[in-house]
């Protein structure tokens, strides 16, 4: 399988272990990712807060690049993913706007090439038996609270590939690699997102509640699919110290891929003591 790849701004920096583990896991599964040439930032939480036009035009440029590449585009960040979908929708539905974008960006919109989230590809498309066949080290004893966060599955009219209140794709994926997902009710509650710098006490409150709820549900770790969710949960827990993984890191660990120690060394809450106690590291 071959896809275009839109890494987004966090993959090279605060979410570096998400990028590294994504590369490794996709290579192991013969999912080829070709980085979009000259991609730009989607505007994240800020563009839509200040300027409606920029919020759609910035990701529209990436949609144009993806279309030129001629493949579906894999996006690891839920916010980038949601903004791409929103821009694509407007390109599809708003003729005048489409014409303006086509002129400014020098392309002709044809609707080819969809934006898809990494979890949707690895957890939704791939055959669970094929995944299980790659496992050399089942993640036995790893009781994981699968945390999807806010915009990965919302708004459902844009995303729509998993239940917006009770998604299960990550749970099934991590179960297939031997982990033990717990039932819990906070899968799609927001961590506070971009308020982490400007109103950090709000994010401390929300992220701590999530971590406490995970612990109460019997989890010994959390898995997520978003650079902002991960850094918020990894840095803003008050009274708990629950390791927060990217789902790709756990897949890589189960597949026995090299490099896991480097990924885990990037975490603020070191997950290696937990993994050692379970005989997984």
């Amino acid at each position: 399988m071959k896809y275009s790849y839109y890494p987004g701004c966090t993959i090279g920096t605060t979410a570096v272990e998400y990028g590294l583990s994504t590369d490794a896991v996709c290579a192991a599964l013969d999912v080829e990712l070709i980085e979009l040439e000259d991609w730009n930032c989607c505007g994240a939480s800020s563009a839509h807060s200040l300027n409606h036009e920029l919020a759609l035009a910035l990701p529209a440029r990436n949609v144009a690049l993806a279309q030129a590449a001629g493949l579906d585009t894999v996006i690891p960040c839920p916010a980038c993913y949601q903004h791409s979908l929103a821009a694509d929708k407007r390109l599809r539905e708003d003729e005048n706007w489409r014409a303006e974008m086509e002129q400014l960006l020098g392309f002709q919109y044809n609707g080819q090439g969809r934006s898809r989230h990494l979890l949707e590809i690895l957890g939704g498309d791939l055959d669970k038996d094929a995944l299980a066949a790659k496992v050399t080290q089942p993640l036995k004893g790893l009781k994981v609270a699968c945390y999807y966060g806010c915009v990965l599955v919302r708004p459902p009219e844009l995303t729509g590939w998993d239940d917006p209140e009770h998604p299960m794709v990550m749970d099934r994926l991590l179960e297939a690699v031997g982990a033990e997902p717990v039932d819990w009710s906070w899968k799609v509650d927001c961590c506070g997102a971009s308020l982490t710098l400007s109103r950090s006490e709000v994010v401390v409150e929300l992220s701590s509640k999530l971590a406490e709820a995970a612990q109460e549900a019997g989890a010994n770790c959390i898995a997520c699919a978003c650079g902002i969710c991960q850094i918020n949960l990894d840095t803003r827990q008050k009274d708990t110290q629950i390791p927060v993984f990217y789902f790709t890191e756990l897949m890589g660990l189960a597949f026995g891929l090299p490099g896991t120690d480097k990924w885990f060394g990037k975490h603020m809450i070191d997950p290696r003591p937990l993994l050692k106690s379970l005989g997984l590291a």
Partner: protein
Amino acid sequence: MNDNDLLIRNIDTSFAELVQERSGENVRRCYYCQKCTVGCPTAYVMDYKPAQVLKLIQLGQKDTLLRSTAIWLCVGCETCGTRCPNEIRLAPVMDTLKYMALEEGYAVPETAVYALHRSFMDSIKLWGRVHEATMLAEYALRSRGAILSDLGMGMQLILKGKISFLPERIKRLGEVRALYKRAGSESVKGGGS
């Protein structure tokens, strides 16, 4: 809500229609079940809760809303829009109110929130992508040091190699700049800092 906030002389009769038109959301359908407020992660720090924001729109309380903290504390998580029995998505409504507040020159009461958004957008304009180190430096200036409490964490992130010093500038930055130019500067003027 203060008793003084709702004044008949402050009613802007065209406000609900305008918000509806710009946001694309039918705000008149709200029958105040308050499901949005109950599910909102940041309602507890807002001056007006999400359902109250909708009610104030219906009542034409433009001035009250454009001064509110609520519109800046909505993080756009889409919980309310997903659950609304009348299919009103509040996130685009909140964004519309932010645009109106900026266009009309209201000071943003959440100065740090606004400072971060501005610094972020300036970074994209400069590089085509966000470059954390310079973006955070601008944010520290704009927010008058709001970030200093996180200095320790910032150091740890640098030590772990999670904040890069060298920015990556995209090749065809001119295209991104053209998008900025087309979008106008009217929505990013004003504000609190």
